[in-house]
């Protein structure tokens, strides 16, 4: 597993070690390795979870989930708040003990080999926990010391990571002078100080503005291109579609579905969706007049969704029935629709 990699700001000099997926505007398509499939030598399994469970009192935060992740894959846990994503991440990260089930990270049980497991990982937590009283560069140096790394290694490495995180000119700034996006990038840089082969990212872009999110995604893409295994949780379906080769949809501590974003959309939704808004008073009542159009109908408080293979044609049928929505939109199906189908709820509920 000791694949050396070097971070450079320019994409041209990046090494492509395991680039398994190519992205399209409609979502990711690419190699899909089903969970629990025996790994090949080229992509040894780095994480395996079998019937993983975590309970707090009577509440099962994670309720018997199983999955495995091969090296170099970008693996996502998609689900709403409270689905058990962060608890799963904490168990993988070796900071929370599981209640039952089996879990191995690089062949090690995190409950019995916590320091050894954590030494393999880079972790980007949901909430920033940077040392705000230290300067930007010092945050990296101090964090590297926790891995027993000498200053002769850490100083050039910190400079390299600051360049990667586009924070070189902020090296001597205090952390509290950074914007939210910069803090996230610094947290990612910090997580890379030990050159981890597995990076855990818990809601990496929550709370960031669109530009900051795109910058962050770009940095994560580069890591992925270098063969770093990315494990990320998110409740943003566009983020999951952009970054994940494969994901599990989690709700109430259980896996609802598993596959690549494109595969999940194909299996659980139609190609296109027509979104109609008739006004919050009329959305429910008008649904009966839409019956028979498309494959399926979902009535939400603020809009009606018609699932159809040909959205334009479905919209024409709506018009031909004399129905005049306030707004209409034809779009491609997304993971949001998959989640809606699987749970009957929206991701942002």
């Amino acid at each position: 597993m000791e694949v050396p990699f070097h971070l450079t700001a320019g994409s041209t000099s990046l090494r492509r070690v395991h680039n398994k997926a190519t992205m399209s505007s409609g979502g990711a398509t690419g190699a899909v390795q089903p969970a629990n499939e025996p790994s090949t030598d080229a992509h040894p399994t780095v994480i395996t979870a079998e019937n993983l469970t975590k309970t707090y009192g009577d509440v099962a935060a994670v309720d018997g989930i199983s999955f495995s992740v091969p090296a170099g894959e970008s693996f996502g846990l998609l689900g709403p708040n409270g689905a058990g994503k962060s608890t799963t991440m904490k168990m993988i990260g070796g900071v929370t003990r599981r209640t039952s089930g089996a879990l191995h990270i690089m062949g090690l049980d995190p409950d019995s080999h916590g320091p050894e497991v954590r030494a393999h990982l880079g972790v980007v937590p949901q909430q920033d926990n940077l040392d705000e009283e230290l300067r930007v560069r010092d945050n990296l140096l101090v964090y590297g010391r926790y891995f027993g790394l000498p200053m002769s290694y850490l100083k050039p490495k910190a400079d390299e990571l600051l360049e990667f995180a586009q924070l070189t000119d902020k090296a001597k700034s205090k952390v509290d002078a950074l914007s939210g996006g910069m803090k996230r990038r610094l947290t990612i840089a910090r997580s890379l100080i030990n050159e981890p082969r597995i990076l855990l990212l818990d809601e990496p872009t929550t709370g960031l503005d669109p530009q900051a999110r795109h910058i962050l995604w770009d940095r994560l893409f580069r890591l992925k291109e270098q063969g770093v295994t990315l494990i990320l949780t998110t409740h943003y379906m566009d983020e999951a579609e952009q970054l994940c080769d494969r994901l599990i949809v989690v709700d109430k501590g259980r896996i609802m579905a598993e596959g690549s974003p494109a595969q999940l959309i194909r299996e659980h939704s139609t190609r296109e969706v027509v979104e109609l808004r008739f006004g919050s008073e009329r959305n429910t009542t008008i649904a009966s007049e839409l019956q028979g159009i498309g494959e399926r109908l979902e009535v939400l408080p603020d809009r009606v969704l018609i699932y159809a293979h040909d959205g334009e044609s479905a919209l024409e049928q709506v018009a031909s029935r004399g129905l005049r929505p306030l707004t209409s939109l034809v779009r491609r199906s997304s993971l949001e629709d998959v989640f809606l189908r699987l749970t009957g709820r929206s991701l942002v509920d």
Partner: protein
Amino acid sequence: MRAHSPQIAAARARRWGAFYYAEQVLRVMKGYGWSIIMYSVGHPVAYLFAMGVGLATLVDAQGTEAFGGVGYVTFVAPALLVSASVMTATNEFTFPVMDGFKWRRTYYGPHASPLTPQQIAAGHIMAVTLRLLLQSAVYFAAILLFGAAPGGWGWASILVATLAGLSFGLPLMAYSASITEDKGQFALVMRFIVMPLFLFSGTFFPLDSLPLAVRWVGWISPIWHGTELGRVFSYGYQQPPLLTVLHAVVLVALAVLGWFLTRRQFAARMGR
């Protein structure tokens, strides 16, 4: 194997993890280094000047029998030294602990690294212990300048003050680590625990000059035990040897109990 291989990192962290975290705490302290220096120098100079030049002039004019035959500033200096250490320990084991767990969650960064919660607690304690030692050494140097430590073992009161700081600070650290919601508990600790202990621990007058009904405040106070022990070293205060041993045992016992509770609390809270 590379210098930064996970195996080496884990092995080093298992061995030296507490020191790594202590380094972090010391770096953060460096950020408010001037404040620490000003406190370490300013506090003893101000107190000793006030006591030695001001109050002592009046008190000593009444005779020194009440203070065991030594001048007032000599009597009060070990108590001030111990009290300063306890107050610093109070500051270092309250707000920064809350910061680590709740406000800025700074403990959770190293918690994701190979360090264990117990090492994080130990590192924090080691850094504060170093601060207490240095601060007490500076304080003792000021006491020497005021000629308020005539005994040959006065330097040992530096260790006594540090121990007293830990004996009060470590149980407090365990309590700080148990707080999940800030309701001003630390202000209450300062006002209703630290200040009464400071005033009624035989600091400015011998404990037995207090009514019997309130002497228990001194008996349970690490400041009193530390002060009495400090006086033995500082100017040869006469007391039964067994009592001297008892003071030391109480201080060590409180520090060990606090250390045990802190470790347990850190592990329980971070492992949730």
